[in-house]
């Protein structure tokens, strides 16, 4: 019995006696198993402390007197250090050699295939796996032979393995002692087999052999090695001239199991070829096997005799003509066209004309001197063979617009080569794009290569014809796109023509390749206050676009530098004068309407966010809306005739980082529509008073410095002392943006609400007849959960603004119509208004 066992037994005895003495009801079982006392026992039962004493050696101190060598006893027995206790917890017990379990082999038992062995390493001490020893064997049922060099977990079968079982053995090795366990192994159930190539048979085609119809290939895969499942089988389709395979060739791209014949297959014979494959590394690819050919593929409709019909002159319409034939008598439907432009009749530099894909084509100035042709793909509505061959048209003669029927042209003594420019004149109703001949004469006054002046002299009959044909509110335009760089562009038109346009609320435009003026004609008699009688054939109206001298640009540049901006391009002055007899009147304003002034955009300026425009009025530069219309042009929107200059400005505010509307706010600030605070911050959440809003709107809408007649009554008793602020309020009132209060006050310091701003903008839109296309179909009530909380007077305004995309509400789908307006909300709403009314990009 070990000391430990003795101790346990004695302890059990003690427990049991203690329990008994303390009157506990239960006696541990171990007590009954306790050993009887080895020595004489002294059985004393104490009712006080309940102790049964035993194992007491007899005698007192004298009887215990040591008779031997006490020092030797102490040295060799009493003070001898105990040996190291082997009593470890059960965890340590049995901890030992590692084991490998779950040994298994996966893979295909075929020559060339790789087998993979797996197993689980275990170690009772939780030691890591060390360099366990792996070995592959061949086994013929009685003898297991080591495969030399096969000592990894993967093994690739060779021909030596055919007919043998394969065994994988692993001897687990741990990285801590005890390190090496007993080898565990696994033997494959089957034997290694020889490989065989897969086959595909029979191979056949189903479906109708016709262009546009799907043909499906079918076959049966087989492999002598049952474990080799099909994988990666490839397909090819061939076309041949006949069933015997004459000129048989693979159809490029036809590698699926089905195929849809195209035009190229019409009349051809189709075959399907299968190359069976599986994943085996040896003989995994079988022999290609072909189907029998189909019948000849049915033909498609054919176009022939294609030609161009029409007058080869700019503005005239050319039509495509061809003969359509279909073997099935299916009517033509949906044939496809493409028009081309080339440098000569042979097709040099032949390119498709973008968007010219209908049966007819209207010639444009870009076609001058070019050769026009088309191609057609005949189609019909039949399900069978609904696409046909492509037949190109014959090339036609050069387009020479206005040569055979020239406009009335007067030749200037200074213009040596005007014939080209003459041909460029177009007088059109812009929306209808209808050309009217004999409508204008162009005189160019040149100094060397410099065009000092280009005079457009309107012809009464032509213009009248154009405006008569044009609809109400259309624009009658005189265009010469190739005319660029003229120092001055003048237009001369008589009052009766302008009055006729005004009667139809038409606009008049004079357009060159770099500048243009486009204005509402109704503003002319309105500004003259002369009535219809004041605009006669005798009334001379002169339109002017004048490139400004360098000094003007330098003055603008100096002003811009002080504003953190820079001038780009050239300043142009736009003006209109009316001469009645001896009286000449300058048209300074267009009333509550916008004129469009086109300016050339310097190369590389493409960012509408940083582009701004100013007009110089009464010695001051005031912002006006501007938008980039293409890579070369910007259009300034203004109700005022003035000198206009493009500028670039890129403001920054350190308190806009991460703001939801930072882009819009910077857009507005760069155009000088809204100013930052004195501390350089934008103060997005600042309040907006009625005075603030008036200034913001006047700047944003380009209303600065309108004439007094158009500005509002200054009779408010509480206008601010600041002259500019006071003027902005008057201008805003004059433009219909604001109304005062019945008590004669404007309340410039009163805070504004979101719905008030929307109302102001919608009133302005109506007053200036701006278009606000619908971009949203949902009603206000459907769009915002608190739509009903807006004031009754604002409902219609809010509805219009909602459908026009001017208001978006908050993230929680609320509109907050009656909430006080903040600077960022005001800027964002006005910015969207400018965008959706096309005043800016």
């Amino acid at each position, binding site marked *: 019995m070990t000391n430990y066992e003795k101790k346990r037994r004695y302890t059990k005895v003690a427990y049991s006696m203690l329990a008994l003495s303390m009157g506990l009801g239960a006696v541990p079982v171990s007590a009954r198993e306790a050993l009887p006392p080895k020595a004489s026992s002294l059985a004393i039962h104490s009712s*006080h402390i309940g102790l049964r004493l035993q194992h007491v050696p007899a005698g007192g101190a004298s009887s215990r007197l040591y008779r031997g060598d*006490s020092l030797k006893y102490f*040295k060799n027995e*009493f003070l001898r250090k105990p040996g190291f206790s082997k009593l470890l917890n*059960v*965890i340590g017990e049995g*901890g030992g050699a590692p084991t490998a379990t779950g040994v298994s082999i996966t893979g295909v038992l075929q020559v060339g295939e790789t087998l993979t062995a797996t197993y689980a390493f275990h170690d009772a001490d*939780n030691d890591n796996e060390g360099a366990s020893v792996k070995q592959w064997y061949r086994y013929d049922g009685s003898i297991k032979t080591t495969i030399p060099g096969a000592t990894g977990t993967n093994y690739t079968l060779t021909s030596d393995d055919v007919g043998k079982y394969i065994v994988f053995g692993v001897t687990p090795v741990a990285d801590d002692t005890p390190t090496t366990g007993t080898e565990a192994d696994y033997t494959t159930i089957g034997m290694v087999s020889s490989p065989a190539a897969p086959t595909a048979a029979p191979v056949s085609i189903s479906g109708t052999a016709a262009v546009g119809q799907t043909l499906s290939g079918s076959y049966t895969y087989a492999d002598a090695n049952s474990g080799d499942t099909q994988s990666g089988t490839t397909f090819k389709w061939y076309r041949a001239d006949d069933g015997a395979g004459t000129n048989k060739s693979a159809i490029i791209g036809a590698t699926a199991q089905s195929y849809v014949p195209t035009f190229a297959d019409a009349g051809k014979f189709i075959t399907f070829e299968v190359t069976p494959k599986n994943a085996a590394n040896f003989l995994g690819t079988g022999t290609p096997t072909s189907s029998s050919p189909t019948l000849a593929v049915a033909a498609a409709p054919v176009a022939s005799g294609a030609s161009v019909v029409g007058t080869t002159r700019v503005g005239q319409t050319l039509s495509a003509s061809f003969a359509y034939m279909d073997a099935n008598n299916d009517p033509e439907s949906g044939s496809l066209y493409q028009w081309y432009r080339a440098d000569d009749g042979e097709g040099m530099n032949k390119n498709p004309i973008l968007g010219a894909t209908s049966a007819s084509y209207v010639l444009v100035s870009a076609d001058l001197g070019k050769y026009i042709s088309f191609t057609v793909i005949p189609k019909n509505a039949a399900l069978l063979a609904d696409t046909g061959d492509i037949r190109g048209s014959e090339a036609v003669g050069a387009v020479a617009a206005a040569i055979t029927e020239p406009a009335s042209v007067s030749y200037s003594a200074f213009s040596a080569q005007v014939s080209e420019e003459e041909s460029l004149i177009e007088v059109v109703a812009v929306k209808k794009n209808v050309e009217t001949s004999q409508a204008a004469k162009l005189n160019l006054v040149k100094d060397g290569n410099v065009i000092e002046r280009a005079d457009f002299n309107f012809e009464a009959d032509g213009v009248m014809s154009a405006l008569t044909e044009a609809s109400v509110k259309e624009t009658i335009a005189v265009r010469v796109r190739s005319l660029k760089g003229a120092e001055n562009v003048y237009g001369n038109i008589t009052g009766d023509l302008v009055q006729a346009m005004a009667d139809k609320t038409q606009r008049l435009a004079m357009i060159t390749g770099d500048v243009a003026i486009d204005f509402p004609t109704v503003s002319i008699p309105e500004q003259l206050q002369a009535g219809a009688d004041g605009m006669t054939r005798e009334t001379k109206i002169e339109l002017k676009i004048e490139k400004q001298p360098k000094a003007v640009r330098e003055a603008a540049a100096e002003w811009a530098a002080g504003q953190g901006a820079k001038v780009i391009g050239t300043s142009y002055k736009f003006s209109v004068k009316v001469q009645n007899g001896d009286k000449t009147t300058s048209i300074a304003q267009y009333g509550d309407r916008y004129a469009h002034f086109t300016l050339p955009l310097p190369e590389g300026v493409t960012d509408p966010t940083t582009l701004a425009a100013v007009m110089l009025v009464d010695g001051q530069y005031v912002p006006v809306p501007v938008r980039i219309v293409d890579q070369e042009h910007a259009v300034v929107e203004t109700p005022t005739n003035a000198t206009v200059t493009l500028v670039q400005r890129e403001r920054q505010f350190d308190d806009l980082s991460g703001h939801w509307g930072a882009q819009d706010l910077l857009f507005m600030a760069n155009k000088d529509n809204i100013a930052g605070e004195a501390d350089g911050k934008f103060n997005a959440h600042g309040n907006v008073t009625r005075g603030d809003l008036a200034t913001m709107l006047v700047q944003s809408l380009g209303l600065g410095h309108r004439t007094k007649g158009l500005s509002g009554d200054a009779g408010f008793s509480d206008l601010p002392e600041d002259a500019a602020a006071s003027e902005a309020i008057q201008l805003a009132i004059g433009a219909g943006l604001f109304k005062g209060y019945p008590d004669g006050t404007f309340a410039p310091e009163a805070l504004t609400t979101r719905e008030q701003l929307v109302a102001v903008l919608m009133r302005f839109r109506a007053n200036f007849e701006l278009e606000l296309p619908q971009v949203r179909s949902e009603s206000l009530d459907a769009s915002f959960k608190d739509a009903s909380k807006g004031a009754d007077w604002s409902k219609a305004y809010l509805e219009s603004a909602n459908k026009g995309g001017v208001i978006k509400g908050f993230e929680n789908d609320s509109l907050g119509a009656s909430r006080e307006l903040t600077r960022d909300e005001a800027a964002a709403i006005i910015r969207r208004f400018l965008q959706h009314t096309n005043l800016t990009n």
Partner: protein
Amino acid sequence: MDNGPKAHWIGMMLGWKMPENFLFACHCMALERGFGFYYFHPKSVNERQGTIAGFVFRDGRWIKDVFPYPDVIYDRYRRKGKDKFGAYAKLATIPMTHTLPEKSFGKLDFYALLSRRAELRSLLLPYMNGKRRGDIPAFIDRHERVIFKSDHRARGRRTVFVTKKEWVYEVDDQTHVHVLNPQEFDVLTAMFAMERFTVQKAIESRTKEGLTYSIRVHLMKNGAGLWCHGMIMPLLSLTPHVNVTNHDHTMRGFADWQLFLTAQFGAIEGAKLDAEVRRQAEAVALALQEELGDGFHEIGLDLGLDASGTLYAFEANIGNVGMILHEFETARHGIAYAAHVAATASQIKGAF
């Protein structure tokens, strides 16, 4: 009882066999607090895998399994600094209940503590370091009967009582009595001096029946991290000449503390002694904590009464304290404290 998979574990590190009922009690106490419980040997820590092979009580028996590192380690190994398996280094990031290095607090350290602290000085028996061999005869002359104690977890073994009888020394090793002349006695002290030992005045605590006893106070930190009395138990030597009651080579007995007090001292005096024992034990615990910090949570304090009824402290063990007959209380407080350590550490980490 929920035996399902656990998100939090208490792992008990053991170096030797522990009572089954203690381990089972730990399992139950851990479950009650929402922890899983497993115990493991320090060798079974796999640092590379971050796992520990241990035993968990499942389906009515202890089953070996591999576990993630626990949230807290209830260290019943307590060999920090002497750990040949490197477990403490591997588990350095895991909170532990016991963090003091092994042998960081021996008998002499305890006596020095008692002598330093005025509130505990009454518990101190006269003692001297055995290294001062030359002073031992004088010490014996002064105190008549002394005890030689080994500093190495003697559990009563390798302990002798020495009494000066005229010109010879009577050395009682609790089995035999040796009579040595001064020269022989000097050789004996030299043998003892081969390792650390302490010489201390011997007192005898005897029951009315004449049995030697000592009072074991097992102090433990509870679930709030506060000291409490895990168990107070008289240890009796059932062998008259074996005066060291925790001598494991001989028979010893245990009594219920309250019954013992009543039987030996009467209700009133017994209650006084009970209060005094508790007061002194708590004072010792607080003093130890002030001296050693929070790196331990168990104290096995052995007390004795001399013939005049004065209470003395034989020794205080802050290592692996015995738990015989109170395995459940030990598990209850130990696991509660382990959970407390885990929660405290987690709060620091912000994990919970």
